[in-house]
């Protein structure tokens, strides 16, 4: 007796036409029907925030939203944050600060941080403000401080690049390289992190 409905979802600026049971969770629609597996399922009860996506700019747990309720709403998942191969400042900042370890919480952390930065409108949120905003995103690896630092750094005005005009033009393509290099540097640390098993 499974009744399916046709829904047109706007995810990361793209239209996805799906045919799903109306009470299917947005999280499952994103992962299974849209092929966007960046959003994770941690707890399935709105505690951990690993499934966070933006609905019209507001971070929500996609495991608590029905597919039908997501129609007519602008949805942004972690896949929508980078522009092509260029990571957003926030994503880059997470890498630069070592704010990602096992990575399960990272998509949700990024998504809720996007809402925070949007709400802060260029002001650098204080440490407690970041912690309050991210209270619904649990991380078992980092101890949070690096995440808080990464979010705050991403909110700071860009000084380096604005300083020299001609260099700024070259800065964009060059940015990708150190990003890759740094990501590699993070990877082995991830494998050897002894705390990971204990945290599970």
């Amino acid at each position: 007796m499974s009744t399916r409905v046709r829904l047109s979802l706007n995810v990361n600026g793209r239209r996805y036409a799906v045919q799903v049971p109306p009470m299917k969770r947005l999280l499952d629609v994103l992962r299974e029907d849209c092929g966007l597996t960046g959003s994770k399922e941690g707890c399935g009860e709105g505690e951990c925030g690993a499934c966070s996506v933006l609905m019209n700019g507001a971070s929500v747990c996609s495991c608590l939203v029905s597919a039908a309720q997501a129609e007519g709403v602008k949805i942004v998942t972690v896949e929508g944050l980078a522009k092509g191969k260029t990571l957003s400042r926030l994503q880059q900042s997470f890498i630069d600060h070592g704010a990602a370890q096992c990575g399960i919480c990272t998509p949700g952390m990024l998504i809720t941080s996007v809402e925070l930065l949007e709400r802060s409108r260029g002001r650098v949120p204080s440490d407690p403000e970041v912690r309050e905003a991210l209270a619904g995103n649990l991380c078992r690896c980092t101890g949070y401080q690096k995440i808080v630092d990464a979010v705050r750094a991403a909110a700071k005005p860009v000084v380096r690049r604005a300083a020299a005009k001609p260099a700024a033009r070259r800065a964009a393509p060059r940015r990708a390289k150190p990003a890759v290099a740094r990501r590699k540097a993070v990877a082995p640390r991830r494998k050897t992190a002894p705390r990971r098993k204990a945290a599970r």
Partner: protein
Amino acid sequence: MKSALSTLELLRPRTLDEALKHMITFERPTPLAGGTDLFVYLNAGTQPHGRYLDLSRLAELRQVLVAKSSITIGGGVTFREIREHAEIRRRFPSLAAAAAEVGAWQIQNRATIAGNIANASPAGDSLPVLLAHDATVHVRSVRRAREVAMADLYVGYRKLAIEPDELVTAVTLASPPRRSRGFFRKVGTRRAQSISKVVFAGVLAAKPGGEVTHVRLAFGSMAATPARAKGAEQALLGKRLTAGTVAAARAALEGDFTPIDDVRSEADYRRTVAGNVLEQFLRPLIS
């Protein structure tokens, strides 16, 4: 996906009238708004009902009406909207404070005030605030529109004094008397994202340096329903606030509730913390 969810039906009315008509059908649907409580049960497989009614699109439920001596908040207004609303922050700061402590951002962005009311958890964060502000709950069915005093709404554990075909559409909070002081405190296992062990809202007005003229003390997680501490209120009303009357109120509070041991806390802890938060509210008001 959670396989059980694939069999569920979802009705998606465009207007409140349409929604109310669904509530008198033979297979009565379960109302769904933000889903932050309901989907927890659905995901856990403990919510068997087959039909749901999506209220999240009803514009009628999303208004905040500001009047001179009250404020009426549509049932579909989210806690995010409540915590950010300028008039609510100014005139009902304890409601804004409670809204800011419901779950975390992800929950506040979806959860609605009518959901908190209708879900009827004894731990509902906003409910003591509504009690402390003599709130009136607006209820509608195809038959009639009526109002139920918040104080009469809960008749037992998760039992509401409303009919099965009625929907909670709004709630009105009365402005507290002038120069009154309000207070909200939620105590949980951690500061954010926790369910309360004790949640308290108070409103108190006194003549300058004189006796208490108005007092509301409401607690959650202390009984099967959120409730006012009538004994403690009586111990204060008409008296001057002194260390002595505060102690008397705390003593009277012991008789107001018989908290229980459960997964979240213990009766002893609850009793002690309830007394502590009451004093935390009252002590700074001693002139």
